[in-house]
């Protein structure tokens, strides 16, 4: 392999790395809150918030810079005394239900909760009729 080809290959590999910012992570992206009780609250919340850049991960799992910035928001707000559910509501207000992994009954999700109950009810009725007839 000629050195020119090698150089071209190396440059092709270097290009994607350039599409990433060079700033250090936000202060609380990788640093825990000093108070362990608050950090535990923040950690529990971060595990149920979706990373918007890497949509199948939580922000606690992701190393995307934006997930780090979201962890900074969560930790500073909780360190300032905000309730975890208030922080979740702040994000849902901005990104919709999609940002939260915690199941919630809402105008769009209620069938998910209602249908299993209705099915159980139907099964119960059918069973009662069949068993009643057998007896």
């Amino acid at each position, binding site marked *: 392999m000629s050195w020119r080809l090698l150089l071209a290959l190396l440059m092709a590999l270097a290009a994607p790395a*350039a*599409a*990433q*910012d*060079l*700033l250090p992570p*936000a*202060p609380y992206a990788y640093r825990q809150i000093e108070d362990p009780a608050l950090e535990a609250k923040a950690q529990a919340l971060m595990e149920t918030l979706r990373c*918007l*850049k890497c*949509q199948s991960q939580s922000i606690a799992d992701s190393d995307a*810079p*934006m997930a780090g*910035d*979201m962890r*900074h*928001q969560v930790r500073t707000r909780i360190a300032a005394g905000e309730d975890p559910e208030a922080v979740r509501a702040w*994000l*849902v*207000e*901005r*990104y*919709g239900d*999609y*940002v939260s992994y915690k199941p919630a009954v809402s105008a769009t999700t209620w069938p998910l909760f209602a249908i299993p109950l209705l099915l159980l009810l139907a099964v119960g009725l059918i069973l009662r009729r069949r068993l009643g007839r057998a007896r």
Partner: protein
Amino acid sequence: MTWFRWVLLALVAGLFGLFAYMLSQPKEEFVESAMIGEAIPAFDLPPIVPDRPGLSSADLADGQPKLLNVFASWCVPCAAEAPNLARLEASGANIVAVAIRDRPEDVAQFLEAYGNPFSRIGRDDISAVQLSLGSSGVPETFVIDGRGVIRYQHIGDIRDSDVSVLLAELREAGA
């Protein structure tokens, strides 16, 4: 009871039809902002280059509708949309910007290379304003009316066909 079986069969067939249809649809990759129609959250960002002032939420409620471009020098599509931002500016749009996780020298170099259509550029090192807008990536462009209310969000780079859409949204916002 045969009618009951047919109904059941139809329900199951309908369910599998729904699965097949939804599986054939492309995945929605973008998370849209839920802030459309809401007032822009309060913020005050310092400048990032010497020849443009920073950006605050008060600047966005000064009576004149504006385009708010969320960009970064490290973002490749942001360079791709530069000619269309220039066209929007030439058509009379006042474009302000937020630079996400960026260094002053890199922004200066980026504007040198691709042009500077922005009247103000705020510096957002930890994506705080981006998160408060419900924006989930770069580039994104918001239409803000003269009262500082978010009226429209464009996700991704501005293609040729998006220019007229953004100008129409800007007109609708009162420009």
